[in-house]
């Protein structure tokens, strides 16, 4: 390798890409550690694909620099770059067999036939497709085609693997199992991967690092936990999972604790990690699953941080029950993982909601 193992494998410096007047990627910088999986996530049209394509070379940069393993590849054509891409619709060569598809890059590199055959066998085994080398792509299921595309991309031992919504054409169950497989393979082979998705759950579950994008700019870069627990702004908070916002005012500060007044209640919470003073307007950000819910009759030992509300309705989302609660004129979402145990909450029932002491706070933005 050209560089020491702790230098980043990929570095984007102030990358900008425009289409006419539209700035699809706006001055983005970030770097990826070797052997890590980073996910670009964001709403449709935010520029994820475009950013990925600047790395593969299919989108020419307007400004900025791309460094791959210490080498400036900004002006290198795509076929010279040591990157490999897995396309959304797989882009397998329909007129070639699976084995030919996987061996294509090796043939371009003029490897010997026995060498290619052996490598293709190895790759087929790697993606659990042994014995299917003679099939044509149209004779495969979606998941199998995906594996072939992956094997083909891995055939040249790229310095970085680029995956553009690789799972979006699969059905829900297959998506989940395939993404686990991709993650395992990435860990096992120590691959450096950029993964693009607009599915936040997929992004959270698969990544070492998340890059949350919106309108061509990076909103936040961080580990899934960081982004989930400490979203930098409302956009990120909203995008990554369901969220409740409680706007309010700091009315008292004492040591590590402060009193935060939301519509009818005063909350006693920890002081956020940024400087605050009395009178500041903030927003409390609370995930639905970190709110405890009990029926209104139940006596609570600790009376602090309790909101009273009424169940509007509840519905199952996967294995949890999401309750929509009216608290004054605000709607609050609460996830209950074990409704059976607590007793089903009926529509219209009066309930108490208990908030934690440690609550993520955002400064209220002007817009």
């Amino acid at each position: 390798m050209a560089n020491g193992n702790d230098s980043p494998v990929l570095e984007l410096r102030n990358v900008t890409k425009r289409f006419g007047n539209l700035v699809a990627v706006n001055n983005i910088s970030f770097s990826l550690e070797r052997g890590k999986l980073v996910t670009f996530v964001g709403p449709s049209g935010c520029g994820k694909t475009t950013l990925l394509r600047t790395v593969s070379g299919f989108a020419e940069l307007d400004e900025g620099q791309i460094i791959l393993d210490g080498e400036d590849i900004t002006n290198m054509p795509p076929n010279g770059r040591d990157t490999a891409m897995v396309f959304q619709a797989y882009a397998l060569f329909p007129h070639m067999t699976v084995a030919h598809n996987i061996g294509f890059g090796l043939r371009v590199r003029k490897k010997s036939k026995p060498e290619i055959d052996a490598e293709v066998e190895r790759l087929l085994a790697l993606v659990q497709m042994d014995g299917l080398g003679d099939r044509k792509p149209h004779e495969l299921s979606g998941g199998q085609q995906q594996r072939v595309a992956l094997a083909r991309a891995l055939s040249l031992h790229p310095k970085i693997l680029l995956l553009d919504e690789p799972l979006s054409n699969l059905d829900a169950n297959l998506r989940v199992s395939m993404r686990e497989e991709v993650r395992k393979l990435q860990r096992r082979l120590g691959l450096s991967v950029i993964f693009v998705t607009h599915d936040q759950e997929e992004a959270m579950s698969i990544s070492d690092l998340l890059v949350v994008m919106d309108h061509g700019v990076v909103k936040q870069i961080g580990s899934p936990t960081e982004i989930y627990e400490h979203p930098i702004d409302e956009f990120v908070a909203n995008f990554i999972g369901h969220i409740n916002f409680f706007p309010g005012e700091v009315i008292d500060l004492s040591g590590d604790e402060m009193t935060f007044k939301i519509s009818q209640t005063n909350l006693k919470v920890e002081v956020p990690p940024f400087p605050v003073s009395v009178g500041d307007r903030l927003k409390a950000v609370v995930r639905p699953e970190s709110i405890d819910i009990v029926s209104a009759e139940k006596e609570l030992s600790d009376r602090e941080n309790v909101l009273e509300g009424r169940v509007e309705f509840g519905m199952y989302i996967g294995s949890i029950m999401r309750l929509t609660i009216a608290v004054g004129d605000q709607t609050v979402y609460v996830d209950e993982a074990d409704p059976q145990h607590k007793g089903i909450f009926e529509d219209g029932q009066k309930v108490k909601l208990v908030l934690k002491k440690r609550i993520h706070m955002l400064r209220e933005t002007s817009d």
Partner: protein
Amino acid sequence: MSLSLQNSFLHELASDTRHFLRRPGLAALTSVAVILILLFIVFPVGSVLLKSFTVTYPTVTVRCQSKVSNRADFKELVTGPILGAIRSIEGVEETRELTDEESSVVVVRFRRDWDDLRGLNDIKRAVQKLQGTFALSVENIKYELGQETIKSLATYGRFFSKSYYYRALKNSIVLAIVTTTIVVFVAFCFAYLGLHGPGFIKAPLRVLGLLPLIAPPFIFALSLILIGGRMGILTRLLHLPFNLYGWPGVITAQMITFLPLGYLLIENVLRSIGSHLDEAASDMGASGVDILFKVTIPLSAPGILKAALLVFIMSIADFGNPMLIGGGVSFLATDAYFLWISENNLEMAAVFCVFLVLPSLIMFVIHQYILKGREYTTIGGKPQQVEERRISPKIFYPMMAVAIPVALMIITCFGMILIGAFTKILMIDNSFTLEHFQSTNGLRSLLTSLKFAFGAALIAPIFGVTLSYILVRKRIPLKRVVEFMALLGFAVPGTVMGIGYILFFNSPPLKLTGTFIILIINEAARNLSVSLEAGVAKLHQIDIAIEEAAIDMGASSFRTFTRVVLPLISSALAAGFVYTFMVGMIAVSAVIFLITPGNNLASLYILAVAEEGFLGMACAISVMLIAVVMICLGGLKLLAHYTKTTIF
């Protein structure tokens, strides 16, 4: 164009050009393609246009070498009297003197079309009469014949001042309108009955609607002559005082010739409407007639309009039918040919060509840039299986009244060709014979046609499909212009491309007229757009990511094209090949200007023998021509079957 629009256009052009120049391979390939398009399509058509704006005059130059040293004396003694004598000669339009040091040069321009030899003799005589007076001062006198070409609108002026010229324009347009109307009407009946009619009528109508497609475009004229010509069966049997030559013949022949085109397009649009709208309308109480006029026809209007435009273009450009059965009525395409072949009047022929091009070009632009992509927007959805359903009698019988006679006519035409081919001389000696098939020239021309069609069918798809790849996938400056230039060969009537080639490839270094290769190139250029469009359509179906995947794997652009793109668009290549081959076998209108005695084509040979009255032989060669085309297509189909590719 507003300023900002213009700016953004220029901006884009500049950025496209920069992008383009950074890719030397692409730039080289594109340049070669553009040069070929310019050479073999744009410049020939352009030279027709230029030619129409020029007039050529015969000139005689008189050169007198001086013996005296004094130039003023010489002028007074020699040049002056010569000019005086010449001015009064008949046919002289203009005289000019170009004096240099030791001679006097007088250029005499005669009227257009003036016999230049007669003019030369007149001048010689006039000068000789003067000889006595200046014998002492002149050493010798030389005469030269020449030509002078002048930019002028005079040919257009003459076109509009002489009725035998502008009548051709009027006739061609009237013919196109009449033919188009009839074809659209008949094709609609065929398509409607073929889709919705009772079972027994569907299949025959479908077959008959498409059958004329496989025939050389003028054999209907040929069989109409056998039926209703001066010696035709009907004319003789019924002692008719008239015959089909002229308007009735041309219109009938064109109707049958262009029926398949109209039928295909209209059937396609009717099919795509599907039955659910009809059902919805009838659910709301609309009668069959209501549905036809208020739902079906309005919905299929874009398709019908498209069919009408194409038939209009084809009718104006048609050469074979008016040639055979026109009976002396002037039409643009054929008269342009006669102007060239019998008067060598290329200037007037060029003016005819301009009027031939104009309607086609207008229609083509309407079709290409206004109607295109709009055919189904009002309808939406794919062609659907239409369910059988009873047609209201008010529609059924009138439509049958149109379709049945036309269907019978088509069958009769094909039958007459067969009968004609095996009969000694129809209506005079009706005995069976095979002698018409034994024409050596006919067989030789068939062989030439095969070589010709095959050659064109190799060039056009390779060039057209490669060009489609550049146009669809690559960023090149002025893409639309390149595309338009490439399609021009198809839009411009064959007569114009023929005359254009005569004009453009007539002088070194591009002296190609008279060669066989120019015939092939001409045919390939004229049919380029079919392969181009087939390639474009196919490329739009292929996910661009597949090519990117190859590039991503390190393949070069060239390798990507040959290993990935070409195999995937091979069906477009095959379709281009089959189409070009088929039309090559029956080509008439452009090649007629370019053939030489040694390499006559079957279709032209048929035309020639038919015109000389050897109808039996014309029929026999037509039969063989159709047979050869079908055998070749059958062979291709088998080949495709064994190699598991789809061709057609």
